[in-house]
């Protein structure tokens, strides 16, 4: 039951969910926007993988990088075209916009590619395993964990060591004040969307590696995971998002072991009931950030 295999699986799932949650929280922190179109960025990353790996002779590493880049540009484009004009109107308008963008991208994939699932050519490494201490561990799990560590390090360096990163953190804390101090709002918001898109692109690679197919509705399950993870971690804290991702992975893995099979089908319902309870009793998340405590009002 709880052995090395379980631990590595959970850690890899947690790494994936942590990156997923980070991409959602970085936008929420600044704009208070719950981006429903976030899942579709993952879907677009998936289709880029499908098209480039299937119909071009590019090496896989470049294909993967291009998937991330395309997801990032899509994210930036949605911000520029849809979110920027409604940003100053109301939160509700922004939320409905993100819902509409999500429907738009999903149906665009339906129209341009196909409603049917497409198999993605994956490199050998995603299908092979390695023996560690007597258990066989899939390479893709090790890669997920490694990528997560690299991304977290890079993001921490960006946020702590660069002016842009400091501006991002300041904006997440108090956007109005940050703007008054001369930080351009558009730059900060675009950066947040770019980071969100990069995260979605990276997640798409590992998400596809698990299912090896891509459909227009691929974005919905990761979006739901990201919702739960961010609420658990507290919607405003990036550290919280990472912790939330891992906590979600641990809960879901343990439920998979201990829940009786006929209740297992309702696992998602339990997770979302948990979300409602957390929002009601601990809206700052299970792990509250420093800024959330210091905020007045």
């Amino acid at each position, binding site marked *: 039951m709880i052995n090395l295999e379980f631990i590595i699986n959970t850690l890899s799932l947690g790494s994936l969910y942590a990156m997923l949650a980070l991409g959602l929280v970085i936008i*929420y922190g*600044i*704009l*208070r*926007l*719950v981006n429903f179109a976030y899942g579709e960025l993952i879907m677009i990353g998936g289709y880029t993988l499908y098209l480039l790996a299937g119909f071009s002779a590019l090496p896989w590493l470049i294909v993967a990088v291009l998937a991330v880049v395309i997801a990032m540009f899509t994210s930036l484009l949605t911000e520029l075209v*849809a979110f920027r*004009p*409604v*940003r*100053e*109107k*109301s*939160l*509700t*308008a922004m*939320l*409905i*916009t993100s*819902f*509409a*963008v999500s*429907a*738009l991208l*999903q*149906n*665009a*994939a*339906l*129209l341009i*590619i*196909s*409603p*049917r699932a497409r198999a993605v050519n994956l490199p050998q490494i995603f299908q092979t395993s390695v023996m560690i201490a007597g258990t066989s561990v899939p390479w893709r799990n090790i890669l997920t964990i490694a990528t997560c560590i690299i991304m977290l390090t890079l993001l921490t360096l960006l946020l702590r060591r660069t002016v842009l990163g400091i501006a991002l953190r300041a904006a997440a804390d108090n*956007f*109005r004040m940050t703007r008054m101090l001369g930080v351009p*709002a558009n730059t900060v918001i675009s950066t947040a969307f770019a980071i969100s898109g990069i995260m979605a692109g990276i997640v798409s690679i590992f998400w596809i590696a698990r299912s090896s197919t891509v459909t*227009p509705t691929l974005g*919905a399950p990761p979006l*739901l995971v990201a*919702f739960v993870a961010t*609420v658990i971690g507290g*919607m405003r804290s990036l550290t919280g998002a990472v912790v939330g991702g891992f906590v979600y992975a641990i809960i879901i893995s343990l439920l998979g072991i201990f829940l009786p099979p006929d209740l297992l*089908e*309702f696992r*998602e*319902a339990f997770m*979302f*009931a948990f*979300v*409602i309870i957390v*929002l*009601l009793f601990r*809206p700052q998340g299970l792990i509250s950030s420093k800024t959330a405590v210091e905020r007045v009002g």
Partner: protein
Amino acid sequence: MNLIDRIKTFNTPLTLVAGILLVAILTELLGIPLLTRIVTVMFVSTILVLGLQLYMGNSGILSFAHIGFMGIGAYTSVLLSMTPTAKELANSNLYPFLIPIHLPFLPSLLIGALVAAFIAAVVGFPLMRLSDAAAVITTFALLVIVNVVMVHWDRVTNGPRTLFGVDNYTNLWTAVAFCVITIFAVYLFKESRVGLRLRATRDDAYAAASIGINMVVMRWLAFVASAFVAGVGGALWAHFITSFTPYSFYLNETFVILAMLVIGGPYSVSGAVVGTLVVTTAREVLRAIENQVNILQIFPEGFFGFTEIVLAIVLIAILIYRPTGILGSQEIRWPPRLRKARSAEPNPSIDHIPGGKQNV
């Protein structure tokens, strides 16, 4: 108050009802089966959009749970109205105690709506404390929960498989009748004490609280009423379509109903009615184009999703250029008033929604 004044108070709902009756009579006279189908579904959609308007328009809070309540109303009413033999055929796994129940259409519909309202009342009360993003995520979570339960509780819903064998009780005139009742009900709610207080909390939560309005209770009442209307809509829809799956009550339907309300104008009853009319017409035209392209086989993989793409673009454009929808916060009246005489209601699009401009 004499009769004329009395009619004046009801100018808006009477005008809307006159419009609806006109459409219904024209449809009946034309007698084209396809058109009758489209118009019937449109009136059912109008009920659903009005139900959403009742909560969203008056409280200013986005709710994703609405279609979940529609599903609850649909499944409950259908399980009561179906004949025992049809039930056994449709779902061999059904709880035995549900099989012999066989009620007429109207009681089934009312019980379906009441169950939806009851569930909304129980789960809704704590949720009404939340605003902004938390409110949206919790109602979204509620929609997901309702959907997961509908998909997996196969002893009631037949699981993800189609539930078929429902008797077709809803026709054009049943839909019209319920639509007319709903228009009056939603309009009366808006103008009632509760409706006025709720709109006060929408426009300025602090000012409303300072004059003793209990925001949570007001929102809760609207949420429950809105779920009841959604339940009625769901029951009517189910008895018209006669076979459906839990996925009929999920994100796609939510998107369409939300688009209808936002395009028409979420802050008025007329907006809900006009939005449904406009979006239904546009969708049918687009769908006809889609079908033509599919018949011509221009695209090898088929031509799907075009309707939704256009709808999404229009929705985004409306939010950018006219965030209060086609009608804004105005109600339709007869005779039409000139632009100068704007309604006394403030434009709730920008500063008045709680949390409206806080970040920018």
